[in-house]
């Protein structure tokens, strides 16, 4: 345990971006304290599309809402949505993949053919179709992207399970009377989870982008909810005359995605058995 801790702390990239990730999370948690009494959903048409000033550090949007407050509060919906999304696809994909790889036969065939169907379409296009059917909301956007993203984890988990499914230690465990549930929990899951967690960590950035993309296209968060992708879309028509309406939410997405991508990469470097 001590050795593992040192391994994390000795990786400078992990430490730096870990701190930055924590800071981003803290911004989300302490948004009300950071913004004071500024309500991110309260607007004033008389102050619409105002350039950054002392009163509004990041300027105002087309409804006269404070963009600084919206960017800060936007971290809540963007981060929570992304983390829930990644957790859902990690759990669902892992469970289905392990079951598929362990049991094989028709179970494997059914799960993998469903996964193939999902992979057959471009992810975002299918997500748009699903979100379109379910109706625009952040929850439905998470559901839509989850539906098209779990196969990646399922296929990965399946291949990792298949690698060990017929090894001697698995056969020995079965011979000694281990039940199926115990086999999955104690032998299959631990042998796959590290790789899957690394994959999930590196996916946080791209999932955040996909959620923002759906919101940008109008299938995610609905006004007046502050959400970075939606804010980008709102500012799109103003890019020539009021670029601040796009720059700040764009920067927020950029910084957050970079931080979580770098953190994921560092985590992979630390945990990937190949680097040992």
């Amino acid at each position: 345990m001590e050795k593992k801790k040192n391994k994390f702390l000795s990786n400078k990239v992990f430490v730096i971006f870990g701190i930055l990730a924590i800071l981003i999370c803290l911004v989300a948690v302490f948004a009300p304290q950071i913004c004071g009494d500024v309500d991110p959903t309260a607007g004033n048409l008389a102050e619409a599309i105002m350039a950054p000033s002392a009163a509004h550090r990041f300027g105002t949007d087309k409804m006269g809402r404070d963009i600084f407050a919206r960017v800060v509060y936007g971290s809540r919906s963007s981060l929570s949505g992304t983390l829930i999304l990644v957790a859902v696809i990690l759990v669902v994909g892992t469970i289905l993949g392990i079951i598929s790889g362990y049991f094989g036969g028709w179970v494997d065939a059914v799960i993998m053919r469903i996964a193939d169907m999902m992979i057959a379409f471009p992810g975002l296009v299918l997500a748009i179709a699903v979100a379109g059917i379910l109706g625009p909301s952040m929850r439905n956007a998470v559901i839509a992207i989850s539906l098209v993203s779990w196969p990646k984890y399922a296929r990965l988990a399946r291949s990792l399970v298949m690698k060990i499914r017929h090894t001697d230690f698995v056969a020995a465990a079965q011979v000694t009377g281990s039940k199926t549930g115990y086999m999955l929990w104690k032998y299959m899951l631990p042998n796959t989870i590290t790789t899957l967690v690394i994959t999930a960590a590196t996916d946080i950035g791209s999932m955040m982008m996909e959620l923002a993309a759906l919101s940008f296209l109008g299938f995610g968060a609905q006004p007046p909810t502050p959400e970075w992708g939606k804010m980008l879309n709102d500012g799109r028509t103003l890019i020539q005359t009021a670029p601040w309406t796009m720059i700040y939410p764009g920067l927020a997405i950029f910084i957050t995605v970079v931080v979580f991508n770098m953190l994921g990469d560092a985590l992979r470097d630390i945990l990937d058995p190949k680097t040992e």
Partner: protein
Amino acid sequence: MKRILALILCVLMLAALIAGCSGKDGGGSTPANPGSSDSGSNGGSNGGSKPAAEKVLNFGLEAFSDGLINPMNQTNTAWNCMRYGVGECLFKFSDSMVPEPWLAESVSSNDDFTVWTITLRDGIKFSNGDALTAGKVKEAFEWIRTEGPNGTASPQKYLPYEAEIAADDAARTITITLPKADNNLPGKLAYPAMEILNVSATTDFDYHAIGTGPYMVKEAKPRVGYTMVKNPYYYADVPYDTVNIVFLGLEAKASALQAGQVDLVENVSIPSNIALIQADSNLTYDSAPGVRTAFSWMNMMEGRPLNDKVLRQAILMAIDNETISKSNTIGGMYKAGFSVLPSNLDFGYNNLNNPYKYDLEAAKKLLTDNGYTYDGDKLMKDGAQVTLVYYSYDGRLLNEMTESHELYLNALGIKVELKESTSGDCWDQMGAGNFDLCNNNWTTVGTGDPTEYMYNWYSTAGDAINFSRYSNPEYDKLYDEYTSNFDTAARKEIMQKMQQILIDDAVAIIDGYWSSSFAYNNKTVGEAHIHTADYYWLSSEIKPAA
């Protein structure tokens, strides 16, 4: 470190890409859409490859219904045919929406408005050289009667299928006998669905309809645009030899104009883009008060919150339309008002009384005096916060208007469930009654008269028309009176009373009155004026710069 270098490199490449795309004059600049590239290949105003004598206009416009021009296909396609300078009607609306002779020379009717005699102008020819005769007009009306049921343009609303039409070529007269009196037949015959085409000579109505307009289709490029050429038989001077119609998206219009890819665009409806155009000395922005009203239907269905007139009244008092319309967000695209009919029309707007001027505190008091309570900032009724489902769709700043209303409704303590959807979905929800508010933008006097539009509040019109489920016997009585009274002064008075009833009953949130516009490059276009009626875009009135 390698990762950081790679990141920096990516950012630089992205910046270079963006810089490359934004170049105005670079040889490799990307057109706004595929249509623009066609425009460029045709020379256009910027290309020096055309002979100096040839006058070319590149006109960027939004394609509705894929830009088809068959007047009997849909309402949009009928409008397209006229907007693209192909079709003309017997009558044309002036900027005060009065029908005036166009292909007709004069018109008269009997005393009870059942028999109308229209005399055609002499010397008019279709773009294929055939003369416009009374027989040709009758032929066109008969084609409308045959083809109307196959599309959704509903031409029978303008000329009943039962109408008897007689043509006298020698006298150049058309005599129309109506099954029911109608004192606004010229207005109805001015509607684009009533365009007079050379139906016996036209083989492809969707793309190559033959009309009497100043331009004719040389080449149709589906979903891209049209190449139009001068109608050699037009009865007046046609300023351009070629007009390249380029289909552009709503947001691409201003960019294409600024980049010099087109010379003229219609209805730039993004205020920030308008500001850029107005700030550019090379561009001219011309707008005219239109005949469109944007308003939010209020659903008064039994059991819905807005069934309560007090709540409706308080909502109107809580929304500051003046501030909204003057805000940077709306940018004056809407003129604030309080009646369902635009203030620029001659229906007595100035004599109307608005009892619901903006006063948030008075609105709150009205509510608390009538059984509503406040729990903090929340407006409560029967133990729950008043919540309204508000539908809207993108276009003509409706979403922006709706979000503005939401701010004001929140200030009143009302929770708004905002549904920014598509226009089709909005119609479905309104038909089904699954809404409290729904924002729309309507043409009010499509035929120069608001009869059809005001029918939207007639109690027995049905849920597919009377979306508000509004009922007021006094309004119904006045409406019946209006449709049977043909005295112009009396009709105006009745219409004024009808408007006041709708105002008093707080039937709708009036966003305001929409303005139409042209924007053009004044180095290449000398004159272009948008009309109040939204039917006349490409015409012989658009002239090149000297």
